[in-house]
């Protein structure tokens, strides 16, 4: 395994191997916890010294949270008690612009994730969020020269209120469901990125999120605006050490792709096995723009995530790839949504799930073609691979087609790996784990060729590690 590959894997290392550095202490952290109510929301807003309009938005979202019912199809979260966790945890650290300035114990975490190397070699910019706040922002000259704005979300609220107001919570309104409302009432952290007209960023920017302790919530909000004819690739990574009890993640990503722009948003989620993960991800695509999502769900105990694109503009395009691995007693409820409004729009959903050792994957998808979205073509395909009898996979696709000229197709396939397959591969000298990892990689191949090379190689290695435990991480 090459050094580069090792490095990349470190960033997304299977969580059980991730540990907090010796001497780590959160004793000086400022914490807001307890029942989610008006006074708590006001306290968070005060701690952030926010403008009035943001507090108002939070409070309206809180009302919706109280009003909205808990979705009845959400399972596996019995342990979750929203009113017992810490909703805001501010580490004892300001925003560093150079990683030498991050307090030592947090810097060690940053280094153990191999982020400095990634930053130097492959990224145009990076933000690192620790608990509820961004503690580090590294931006290469190139971004400044091209007038790209990349800031912690809070700072954008202060410095660019007009832009933020125009988009924040407009792409994914809080009223849509209880967890979107909760997120909006409590949000903290996340990144704001604005790419000016015609600017193409050759290297990706990355945001990395880390949750250090049990019984806390992380509610980061990422807003990405690609102005006309611009181009950006965004990588999102997340990780956490294994704790004794659960933690809760309820983030949001909003993307606005203006005319002719291209946005690629890649997530590799590798939370530790006791994180309950909700995510709210949506993009709006204007005329001739392209939005691509890749959601790699590897970690966490329970995940609910459905990247969505609204194809508002004519000739807008989107592709949504989801790769979900439930290895062990895990549940991944993932999927995608495409809502087409513009003419000649095109969408493609490719979902791949792998269930092993008692894991469950659920695909939940929606394709809606509105009247007037003429000649729009959307295809979706769901492939499930089930590695043993204890594991399962379920598929719930849903189509709503109001436009006669549209064409929508859906296919679903389920494959299993039987003892006969394994014996065959073993009779060629491979161990059971090696046989499984080859079959899983083969199953993912058509997705792997379609995503950025670096991410493909990371995902490839994560799969090999996950299923064969060979070739270690050194």
């Amino acid at each position, binding site marked *: *395994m090459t050094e580069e590959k090792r490095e990349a894997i470190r960033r997304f290392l299977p969580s059980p191997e991730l540990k907090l550095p010796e001497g780590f202490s959160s004793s000086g952290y400022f914490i807001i916890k307890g029942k989610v109510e008006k006074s708590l929301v006001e306290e968070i807003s005060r701690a952030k010294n926010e403008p009035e309009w943001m507090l108002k938005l939070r409070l309206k979202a809180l009302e919706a949270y109280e009003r909205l019912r808990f979705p009845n199809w959400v399972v596996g979260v019995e342990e979750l008690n929203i009113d017992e966790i810490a909703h805001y945890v501010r580490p004892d650290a300001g925003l560093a612009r150079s990683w030498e300035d991050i307090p030592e114990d947090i810097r060690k975490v940053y280094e153990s994730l191999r982020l400095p190397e990634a930053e130097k070699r492959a990224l145009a910019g990076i933000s690192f969020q620790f608990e509820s706040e961004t503690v580090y922002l590294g931006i290469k000259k190139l971004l400044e020269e091209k007038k790209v704005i990349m800031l912690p979300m809070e700072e954008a609220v202060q410095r660019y209120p007009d832009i933020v107001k125009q988009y924040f919570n407009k792409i994914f309104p809080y009223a849509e469901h209880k967890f979107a409302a909760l997120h909006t009432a409590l949000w903290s952290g996340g990144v704001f990125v604005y790419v000016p007209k015609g600017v193409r960023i050759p290297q990706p920017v990355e945001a990395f999120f880390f949750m250090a302790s049990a019984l806390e919530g992380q509610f980061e909000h990422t807003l990405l605006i690609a102005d006309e004819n611009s181009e950006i690739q965004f990588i999102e990574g997340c990780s956490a050490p294994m704790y004794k009890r659960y933690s809760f993640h309820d983030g949001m990503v909003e993307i606005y792709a203006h005319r002719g722009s291209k946005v690629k948003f890649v997530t590799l989620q590798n939370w530790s096995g006791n994180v309950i993960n909700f995510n709210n991800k949506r993009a709006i695509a204007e005329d001739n723009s392209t939005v691509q999502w890749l959601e790699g769900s590897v970690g966490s105990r329970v995940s609910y995530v459905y990247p969505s694109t609204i194809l508002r503009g004519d000739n807008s395009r989107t592709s949504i790839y989801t790769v979900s691995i439930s290895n062990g007693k895990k549940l991944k409820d993932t999927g995608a949504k495409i809502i087409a409004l513009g003419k000649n729009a095109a969408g493609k959903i490719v979902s791949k799930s792998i269930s092993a050792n008692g894991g469950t994957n659920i695909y939940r998808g929606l394709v809606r073609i509105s009247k007037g979205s003429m000649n729009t073509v959307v295809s979706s395909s769901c492939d499930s691979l089930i590695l043993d009898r204890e594991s399962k996979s379920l598929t719930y696709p849903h189509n709503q087609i109001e436009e006669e000229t549209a064409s929508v197709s859906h296919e679903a396939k389920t494959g299993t790996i*039987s*003892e006969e397959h394994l014996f065959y591969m073993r009779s060629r000298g491979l161990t059971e784990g*090696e046989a499984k990892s080859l079959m899983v990689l083969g199953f993912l191949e058509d997705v792997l060729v379609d995503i950025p090379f670096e991410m493909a190689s990371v995902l490839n290695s994560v799969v090999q590690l996950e299923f064969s435990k060979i070739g270690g991480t050194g």
Partner: protein
Amino acid sequence: MPLVAEGVEAEAGGKVILKGVTLELREGEVLAVMGPNGSGKTTLANVIAGSPSVSLKKGRILIDGEDVTELPPEERVLRGLMLLFQSPPEIKGVKLSTLMIASFNKRRGLSSDLLKVTDPSIFSKMRSSLSVVGLSDEYLYREVNVGFSGGEKKRSELAQAMMLDPKYVIMDEPDSGLDIDGLRVVGEIISRMKREGKSVLLITHYTRLFSTVKPDRISVLMRGRIVAQGGMEIAEEIDRSGYSKLAERLGVELNND
């Protein structure tokens, strides 16, 4: 040193199939194991290769004097054994070249990176192994056995054997479902393996392969027991009068219970 099955009693699918089988495959020989359908031929091949579908109740398997009875199938491969399947399963998503490279690396003890190409000549080796069995290069990039005809599967098994370079090859009915050309290819490859000093355990129902490759010895399996051993005269008898007559002459029962 030989490959030995010693006093093997084994069950498959909850039924007793092998009732005490002992046989020895000596270095550089072709040993044919013949028998009617249901006599336990495939179970014998599986138990030697270590298939989890067969449970060994009694007896041992030895490779070059080492007891491998408790070893998993892949460990037996590393010691020079290889089973060619009668009907190999379709392995979706895995290209034939991928499987060949992975097994090539394993056989040579290069397991740290399964798919790494350390020896660039591996590609010419793969191509020539395919061409020997009469398959074109494009099969390297097809998924293993997916959409292959019966004959193509057999040929692919043989090509893999040439890549893996085993010392002991067990061929489970390599001749079933083959046309004349296919039979000739299988026969030629067995002869070639013998010339290279490999040992072949040739499991077959018919004698038709023997016109291209004459086995050194023949054992006959009926109802889970070896009932006869000898040379080509046994094949001639089977050809002439069939298994039931042979069973009658030997005073044993044919299978199909």
